[in-house]
C-alpha cells in the first residue's frame, strides 16, 4: 500500500467552495498521482481558477464541504507558506507585482525558504543562469522589480522560471498559456514537461494549443463548479471543436 500512497500527490474529495458567500465549486473530485498531467478545461467562471487557488490556500476561498489532501495530509493543517515549503507551486494567472523588490533577490530568498538544501552563492547563480537560458530570459530580468511593469508574457516566463527553481511536487498552472506567442508557448511547455516528470501537474487552460505541446494524461471538463466529464487528450480536442453545449445537455 505504501507504494500507492507515496505516488498520490493530490486528492480532492467532494470539494465545495464559496467566495463571499457565493458557491463556486459544487463537489469536485480529483486524484493526481506523481508523473501525471491533468488538464482542467471549462468556460470563464466555471471554477477552474478557484480550484487552483483553493488548493494553494487563498484566504478568500472558503471550503464549505469536502477535503483536500496533499501526499495524504489534510491541507487545512498547512498555512500557505507551509504548502509552498512542502512542494506545492501555483503559477498565477495574474501574478502580483512587488515594486522595489528585485527579481534576483526574490528568487534567491524564495528558493532558500522552500528548498531543504538551497544552493549557495555560485551554485545558485549557475542554476539560475541555466534556467534562464532555457527560458530565453535575459539577465536584465534579475535587476527588475518583481512583475512590476512586466508584459503578460514576461510575467508567465517568470512564473515558469520560479517553477524550475523551486522544483515542486505539485504544479498548479493557472492559464499559464494565455498571453504567450507561439515561441514563448513552446519554451514554457518545455519547462512544464521537465517538471512534470517527477511531479503531479494540474494545467488550467481554455485552449488546445498548450496541450499539443504538453500531453495530458487526463482531461477534465468543468461546468458550474463540477467536473462533468473526464477523458484522455481526445476530450480536449472535442471541447476545442464543439464547445461545451453538448456537455450541458449531457449533464
Amino acid at each position: 500500500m505504501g507504494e500507492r500512497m507515496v505516488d498520490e500527490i493530490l486528492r480532492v474529495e467532494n470539494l465545495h467552495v464559496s467566495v463571499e458567500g457565493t458557491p463556486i465549486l459544487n463537489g469536485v473530485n480529483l486524484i493526481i498521482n506523481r508523473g501525471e498531467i491533468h488538464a482542467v478545461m471549462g468556460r470563464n467562471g466555471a471554477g477552474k481558477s478557484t480550484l487552483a487557488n483553493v488548493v494553494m490556500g487563498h484566504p478568500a476561498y472558503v471550503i464549505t464541504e469536502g477535503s483536500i489532501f496533499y501526499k495524504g495530509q489534510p491541507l487545512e493543517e498547512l498555512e500557505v507558506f507551509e504548502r509552498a515549503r512542502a512542494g506545492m507551486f501555483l503559477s498565477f494567472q495574474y501574478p502580483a507585482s512587488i515594486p522595489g523588490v528585485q527579481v534576483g533577490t526574490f528568487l534567491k530568498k524564495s528558493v532558500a525558504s522552500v528548498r531543504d538544501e538551497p544552493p549557495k552563492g555560485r551554485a545558485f547563480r549557475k542554476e539560475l543562469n541555466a534556467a534562464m537560458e532555457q527560458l530565453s530570459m535575459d539577465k536584465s530580468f534579475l535587476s527588475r522589480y518583481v512583475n512590476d511593469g512586466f508584459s503578460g508574457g514576461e510575467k508567465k516566463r517568470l512564473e515558469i522560471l520560479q517553477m524550475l527553481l523551486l522544483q515542486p511536487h505539485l504544479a498548479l498552472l493557472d492559464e499559464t498559456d494565455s498571453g504567450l506567442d507561439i515561441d514563448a508557448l513552446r519554451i514554457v511547455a518545455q519547462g512544464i514537461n521537465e517538471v512534470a516528470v517527477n511531479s503531479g501537474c494540474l494545467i488550467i487552460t481554455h485552449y488546445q494549443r498548450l496541450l499539443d505541446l504538453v500531453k495530458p494524461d487526463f482531461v477534465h471538463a468543468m461546468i458550474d463548479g463540477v467536473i462533468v466529464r473526464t477523458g484522455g487528450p481526445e476530450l480536449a480536442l472535442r471541447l476545442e471543436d464543439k464547445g461545451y453545449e453538448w456537455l450541458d445537455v449531457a449533464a
Partner: protein
Amino acid sequence: MSDETQEIIGDYRYGFHDPENSTIRFDKGLSEQVVRDISELKDEPEWMTEIRVKAFRHFTERVMPEWGNCDLLNMIDFENITYFLRSSDQTEKSWDDVPDDIKNTFDRLGIPEAEQKWLGGVTAQYESEAVYHSIREDLEEQGVIFLDMDSGLKQYPELVKKYFGTVIPHSDNKFSALNTAVWSGGSFLYIPKGVSVEMPVQAYFRINAKNMGQFERTLIIADEGSTVHYVEGCTAPSYSTDSLHSAVVELIAMEGAKIRYSTVQNWSSNVYNLVTKRAVAHKNATVEWVDGNIGSKLTMKYPSVLLKGEGAHAEVISVAYAGKGQHQDTGAKVHHLASNTTSNILSKSISKDGGRSSYRGLLQVTPKSTGCRSKVVCDALILDGGSRSDTYPTMEIGNSTSDLEHEASVSKVSSDQLFYLMSRGFTEDEAMGLIVNGFFEPFTRELPMEYAVELNKLLELEMEGSIG
C-alpha cells in the same frame, strides 16, 4: 526590568545603556545662567556667548508651534532635561584612548569597523560632546577641515563667525533658538575649492544618559566646485522617560559644489527629535538630503534647500517609519529663489501598529524665478487599521513659466501581494518585510551599501510578530 521598560524597548536593538559616568554634569533645567555656564566652560569668544544669550531670550519668549502634534510637543518638560553632560575630558584621535565603556558602545554600533572599511573621517559624539574624532590624512593634506563643532570654533573662529546662523537664524523657530542657546558638539566641515571627497565622512550621535538633551550643531561649507557626502547616524538607550534631541544643521554649497547629506535616524521611542536642517545652494550647486526616520517618539524635521543661484538643484529623498506610539512628522521644503533652478522631492512613509506619519511639504517659486522645474512625489503605505497617514503639501508658485508636478498616493498592502509571496514560501511576516523593503527601495538604493543592508534588516525586524 519593569514591564513598562520592556514594553518600550520592544525589538529596538540599540536600547542598551552604559553606566552614567560624567566628568561634568549640569543640574537639570534651563536658565540664562546655564547658557552662560556652557559658553564659559567651553571658553568661547564673547560674540558666541552673546549669540547664545540672545537665542535663549528668544526661546523663552517664543511660543510652542501651534501645528504638528501639539499634544506631544506640550508634554516636553524643559525643566526635567540635562542640558550639558561631559563624559570624557577630551576628544581623542585614537579609539584606544576613548574611555572603555564609551568605546564599547561605539564598537557595538559598528563605528570603528565602518571607519576602517569605507569612511573618510568619523566624529563620534557621546552626550554633549565628541569623544572621538579622526580624518584620513590624505583629506587633511588637501585642506579638508573636519572637526567637531567646538574644536571648529576654537581653531577657525573667523570661518565659523562668518557662516554660523546665516542659513538658520536663531529666531527661525523655537527649537532653533533652543539649539543656538545651548548647542554643543556637532560637526564642522569645510571642503576647499575643487576638492572632491570620494569616501563619505560620518558623524555618529549617541545619547546615553536619562532625560538628556542633545543639541548638536553642524555647519558644512562646500567651496566652489567641491563635492562631499556626509553621513549621520544616531541611537539612544530605551528609557521610560523622555530625552530631547534638537539639532541645527546648516549647509552651504558654493557655486558648482555638491553636498549630499544622508541620515538614518534610529532613536529609541522615548526621544523627541526636533531638528532644523537647511541648505543654501548657490549657482549650479546641488544639495541632496537623503533622510531616513525610523525611530523616536516624535520627529519634526523638514530638510530644506534655498536655491539661491541660477541652475541650482535640490534633491530630497526621505522615508519615515511610524510604529507603535510614534509620530513621524517629516517632509521637505524647497525655495526656488533663482531662475532655472530644479528640484525633486520623493517622500515615502509607512505607518504600522497605530503609528502616525505626516508629510508636510513646502514648494515655493518666487515671481522672478522663471523656468523652474520641480517634481514632488509622496507615497504612503498603511499596514493596519489603527495607523494613520496625512499629507500637508503647500505650493506657492509665483510665475507661469515654471513647471511643477505633484503626485501623492496612499496604499495598503494587498492580499494578492501577500498571497503571492506566501505561495513562494515566505511567512506572512517575511512577506510584509519584503513589501516594506521594496517600498523604501528608492531611498535605500541611495544609501551607502552598509547602511542599506542595515536598514533592510531593521525593517524586517520591525515586521516580525506584527501580524496576528
